[in-house]
């Protein structure tokens, strides 16, 4: 499989505080890649660098074989049009209804007419089981519903790469499984590459192809789920055993 994202020696800081300290990893086409690590270890930070929202101190990030560090805004936009992003807190525009939120990318980056756009919105909302919430405002949604609405917006343009920051945090196990099934469906049917930050063991077992485990700014482990389960690195063994019912 082709490498779709290549990260090399990525070093990042917030106000001089080192967060990521030399991360090197590749993400392959059409795989589900999981970013793991303790709370506050820099998973969201890594994600935001890959989509060019934050500028690293040093290192290189290639997406679709193009270096995005220091890239011109227009070129970055070209790349972002092929990516969908689900933010950790949803980041829906509060002044628009749920349906209008999903419509933003369609209205702005296509010249489809309104009727067609509406039909697409309905399908996407239906995929995340939010058809009934189309005309509600984000303020009227629960935390989990916001996440699902934001996921619908992220896949509005059928992106090649989908980034999800904790898609199933705060969801019940059934809905969480439904989201996982949706991600797998997107992977199989649309050949999407999916990058997911998650802590849910059940979810990891269901969807993961490969995993990176971040710890103290370093990538402690990069490999397949199978390798991770067999790993004898203490932190990883702990992660996979502590959460399991025995």
């Amino acid at each position, binding site marked *: 499989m082709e490498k779709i994202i290549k990260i090399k020696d990525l070093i990042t800081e917030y106000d001089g505080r080192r967060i990521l300290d030399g991360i090197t990893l590749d993400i392959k086409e059409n795989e589900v890649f999981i970013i793991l690590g303790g709370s506050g270890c820099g998973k969201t930070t890594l994600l*935001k660098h890959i989509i060019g929202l934050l500028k690293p101190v040093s290192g290189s990030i290639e997406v679709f074989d193009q270096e995005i560090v220091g890239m011109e805004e227009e070129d970055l936009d070209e790349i972002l049009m092929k990516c969908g992003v689900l933010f950790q807190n949803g980041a829906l*525009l509060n002044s628009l209804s749920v349906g209008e939120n999903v419509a933003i990318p369609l209205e702005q980056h296509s010249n489809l007419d309104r009727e067609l756009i509406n039909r697409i919105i309905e399908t996407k909302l239906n995929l995340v089981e939010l058809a009934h919430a189309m005309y509600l405002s984000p303020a009227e949604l629960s935390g989990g519903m916001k996440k699902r609405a934001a996921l619908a917006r992220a896949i509005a343009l059928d992106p090649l790469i989908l980034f999800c920051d904790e898609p199933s945090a705060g969801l019940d196990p059934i809905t969480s499984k439904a989201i996982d099934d949706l991600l797998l469906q997107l992977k199989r049917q649309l050949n999407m590459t999916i990058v997911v930050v998650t802590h849910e063991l059940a979810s990891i077992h269901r969807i993961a192809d490969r995993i990176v485990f971040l710890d103290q700014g370093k990538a402690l482990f990069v490999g397949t789920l199978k390798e991770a389960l067999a790993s004898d690195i203490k932190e990883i063994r702990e992660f996979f055993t502590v959460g399991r019912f025995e």
Partner: protein
Amino acid sequence: MNSFEFKKDTLVLKDELTIINAEAFLNFVSANISSIKKENKFSIDLANLRTIDSAGVAAIDQVIDSLKKSSIETKITNASEKVQNSLTAFSSLELTGKDFVKPRKLGYFEGLGDKGFNFFDNVKYFIYLAADMFFWGVVGIFSKKGQRKGEFVVQSNLIGVNALPIVGLISFLVGFILSLQSAQQLRSFGANIFIVDLIAISMTREMGPLMTAIILAGRSGSAIASEIATMKISEELDALKTMALNPIKYVVLPKLYAMTIATPLLTIFADIIGIMGGFLIGITYLKLSPTAFVDRMAHVMVLKDIITSVVKSFVFAWLITIVGVFFGLRAKGGAGGVGRSTTASVVTAIFMVIVADSILGLLFY
């Protein structure tokens, strides 16, 4: 009745040591500190202590730590199992030196330099932002791509139409009072008719644009700053960027256009209403005939007065919008951050409007 008792080198605690009497315990120890130091050894007897909470444990630990500095070892004796469990769970003795990283505080001159550097950084960013907004403002007229549909109408209503009553009321009062104050002086010279010169020129050149701008800075400048700050803090702007949308185009342009159109119109409206205030004084208090007032006005008002009014209002509109957007985009740190940027935006906008008014006043004099 006191639950602390001091016997030779032993402090006996009874009943309970909790958040309620922890402070009293510390005071009790410091009152007896001299005798403790004399003995050179010290123990705390917990045999009769039934309850202790984290505040109690912290108090005991504080005593242990402070006595350790005068190299006196403290022994804890006879703790029941329950008390011992609390002592272990809440112990703060091993915490010192753990990584509670405090941000380094800047020295006085360092702080001053940092402030200066920040200030220039802000000025630089402000100029970039102004240039960016000007660029997209012009480009956006010709290409609607990346702008939010229908938003211009919504914003024009919010910024322009909804402001009509307050702008009208305030300009009327300003025109009315301005004329009333001068009318008496004019009447004593028998120069009644000159009220027309006075009110027409001062309203169009100065008070109309200025009052409108100040109202808009408070009303719309603050709304712009707080909306953008909220969007920044809840990552809505980041989300727009990842959808390959430029927040300036998508969020700011409709507001900029609405301000650019609404401010001059509101200003002309304010001019007219203000002059009507003067008209009322003219025909009542100064006993001018309405035709005389209108005739005189047609005579003294020149195109330049109206142009001054409009040019000023354009400049003010842009200043208010840029300042609002600037503080909105610079917001950080939760709900408090939104409040701070909003306040800063109103204060700065009013200040800059008045400075710009003075400069333009000199230019158009």
